[in-house]
């Protein structure tokens, strides 16, 4: 067993070994002790483990209970204590440790009282101590290599985060400081917004560190950075590179094998490659380019820009994330929201199953869109279950004046008087189903099919989506629910082509009318008799909630009034 004095002496030697300040004799003495004494070797091993832990994690250990290191660092008491301890070091007596069964206690230290002699020498020392204290204050305050811990960013969103087990998990809204050591995200995603204006999305597994208001170190993992003009100069450092933003969006991957990849999607960056010991190489990397910094020698090579590799945005409310495509910002296009999918049911639409239909009078969903004559509207508004983004349906008829067009009570009084009859369920099925003969006043029954005519001609584009809304029928979509399901986007406009199916062009004259309403206000109206097709392109504002598509019979009966909204979509713009 080593005595306390022996441990003290040994600790001193080890510290000097680490600082490379052992003289030859001391090194030899230390080596001899390590060889001859198993206790000394055990102490050495424990000391080195503890040293490494302190070096990498002391701030994590003391984070909750102690002030941030910069705050009380300049406390004069600290230096007085240091001075006192240092002057009295030779006289320190360390009591033997308490019995093992007692509670854990730090050893008490007795200071033997010293007789203080007030003399010129002591005064000089006191003066020098004060001067040294002042010098230390200046050193710590102004030395750029010794930054004081400061808050620099906020955790603005988290998606399924899994943090390192030893630390208290970070929460949405937490402020992040510099100099708190590496933060370990084992899995999931974290969005960090710097006060300076840079926004970073980290994908776990990742280990990263806040360095300054304009810098982050990425030890391992993947991040995507979007840097506003106010944060120009924002830097991401890895083991062998520094990426300096010049007004841009970029992704960085620091892999376990020591390589760094930089992918620039917008704007321009400067890449400085090389570890602190290497000679540096500086290269500009612009939008559309990607570079790899090799682990072995920090050599830089061109690589392909990776699409869908970096997560650009996360939304914890919807649980969604958005991966960065490879397009420059001003060329990015996003697939519109297909209203036909909302009518068919999203899963059905994905499986190319469009047969179902919605009864515009009752709101019932039929597995196969039903059609029959003498189906009469009840002048009401019916909710539609099992279709998340559809608010309701109705049979439009101007004879009652106000038609209710949304669950929020919006109404429209512009519909003409109609027969209040409807033939077919509203459906996304791109087929006209002709029936055998017509029996007025016959009982409602399933009618025999004679012919199935595709809405789209062979010469037309395939994979077109459509809504077949045979008059008199209307459907209202809930734009707010659509917004919530697409958190990264603004709904910019509704587009479609109002038309007859091509096969119907030479049939009886169709006088049907198409209507598009936003919150009960008519924004588009078109009479088919003018021409066979008409483009619709209606802007949507962020305040508008309900989009209604309606068809009316044009004043004659509803026979052969096949009305199609071709490719009905809501266009999207990416939010900032």
């Amino acid at each position, binding site marked *: 067993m080593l005595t306390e004095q022996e441990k*003290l002496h040994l600790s001193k030697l080890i510290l000097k070994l680490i600082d*490379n300040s052992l003289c030859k004799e001391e090194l030899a003495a230390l080596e001899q002790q390590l*060889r001859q004494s198993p206790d000394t070797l055990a102490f050495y091993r424990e000391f080195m483990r*503890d040293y490494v832990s302190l070096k990498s994690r002391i*701030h994590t250990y003391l984070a909750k209970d102690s002030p941030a*290191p910069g705050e009380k660092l300049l406390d004069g008491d600290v230096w007085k204590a240091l001075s006192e301890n240092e002057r009295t070091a030779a006289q320190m007596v360390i009591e033997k440790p308490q019995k093992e069964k007692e509670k854990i206690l730090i050893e008490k*230290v007795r200071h033997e009282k010293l007789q203080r002699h007030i003399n010129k020498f002591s005064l000089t020392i006191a003066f020098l101590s004060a001067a040294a204290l002042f010098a230390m204050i200046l050193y710590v305050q102004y030395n750029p290599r010794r930054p004081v811990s400061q808050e620099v960013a906020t955790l603005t969103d988290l998606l399924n985060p899994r943090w390192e087990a030893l630390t208290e998990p970070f929460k949405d809204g937490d402020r992040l400081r510099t100099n708190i050591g590496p933060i370990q995200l084992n899995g999931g995603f974290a969005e960090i917004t710097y006060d300076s204006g840079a926004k970073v999305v980290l994908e776990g*597994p990742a280990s990263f560190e806040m360095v300054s208001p304009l810098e982050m170190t990425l030890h391992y993992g993947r991040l995507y950075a979007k840097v506003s003009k106010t944060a120009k100069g924002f830097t991401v450092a890895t083991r062998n590179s520094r990426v300096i933003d010049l007004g841009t969006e970029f992704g960085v991957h620091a892999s376990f094998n020591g390589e760094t990849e930089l992918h620039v999607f917008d704007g321009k960056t400067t890449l400085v490659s090389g570890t602190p010991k290497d000679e540096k190489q500086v290269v500009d990397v612009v939008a559309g380019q990607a570079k790899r910094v090799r682990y072995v020698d920090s050599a830089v090579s061109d690589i392909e820009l990776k699409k869908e590799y970096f997560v650009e945005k996360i939304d914890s409310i919807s649980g969604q994330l*958005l991966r960065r*495509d490879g397009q420059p910002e001003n060329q990015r296009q996003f697939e519109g929201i297909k209203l036909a999918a909302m009518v068919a049911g999203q899963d059905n639409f994905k499986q190319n199953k469009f047969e179902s239909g919605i009864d515009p009078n009752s709101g019932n969903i039929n597995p196969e869109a039903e059609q029959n004559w003498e189906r009469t509207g009840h002048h009401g508004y019916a909710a539609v279950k099992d279709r998340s983004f559809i608010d309701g349906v109705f049979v439009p008829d101007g004879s009652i004046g106000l038609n209710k067009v949304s669950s929020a009570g919006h109404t429209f009084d512009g519909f003409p008087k109609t027969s209040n009859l409807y033939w077919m369920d509203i459906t996304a099925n791109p087929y006209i189903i002709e029936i055998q003969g017509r029996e007025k006043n016959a009982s409602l029954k399933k009618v025999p099919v004679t012919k199935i005519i595709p809405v789209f001609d062979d010469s037309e584009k395939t994979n077109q989506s459509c809504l077949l809304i045979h008059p008199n029928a209307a459907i209202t979509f809930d734009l707010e629910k659509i917004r919530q399901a697409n958190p990264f986007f603004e709904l910019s406009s509704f587009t479609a082509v109002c038309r007859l199916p091509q096969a119907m062009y030479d049939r009886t004259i169709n006088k049907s009318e198409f209507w598009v309403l936003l919150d009960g206000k008519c924004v588009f109206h078109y009479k088919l008799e003018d021409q066979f097709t008409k483009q619709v392109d209606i802007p949507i504002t962020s305040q508008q909630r309900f989009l209604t598509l309606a068809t009316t019979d044009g004043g004659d009966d509803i026979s052969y009034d096949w009305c199609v909204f071709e490719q009905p979509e809501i266009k999207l713009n990416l939010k900032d």
Partner: protein
Amino acid sequence: MTGNDNKNSSVDTDKSERFFQLLMTSQNRIHGFLFMMVHNESDAEDILQETAAAMWQRFDDFQPDKSFIAWGLAIAHNKAVNFLKRNARTKVHFNEDLYQRIASIEMADEADNTERTEAMRTCLKKMKKNDQKLLLMRYENNIPIKQIAELLGRSQNGIYQTMARLHNLLHGCIQRALALR
């Protein structure tokens, strides 16, 4: 392309996550071992990076029923030995057989550092505030002992004595904490 997090997990992501968690759990232990071998902070960090890179490259060969720490220590040992050979003339070292003895003892111990880390956290919190601040200055602000001594106009020996005292306080507390578990 939008998607849900769960649906987009791929085999590569799973592998990365597994490796990352294993590495982060064992890194402290491997780092400590390397520090015993080369007793220089920046050298130990460099070799640790090399070791981590080698472990990732060979991760497909790692058998999940074996000790990840033991596997990592073996790779780290090779890296350390190569480093010592390359730097035999330029760096201050012990004789080779002492390092071999250290390595043998360390590699026979497959435990991670979790208990010791927990004990250190507890013991650090119990230290006097001024003692904590001194440790923070040395280990968080990286002020070398030589520099502290110069700034204070004191002998380096005295500063080393103070830091040694703090280390011993911590060590004693940790040892008692571990003995009680």
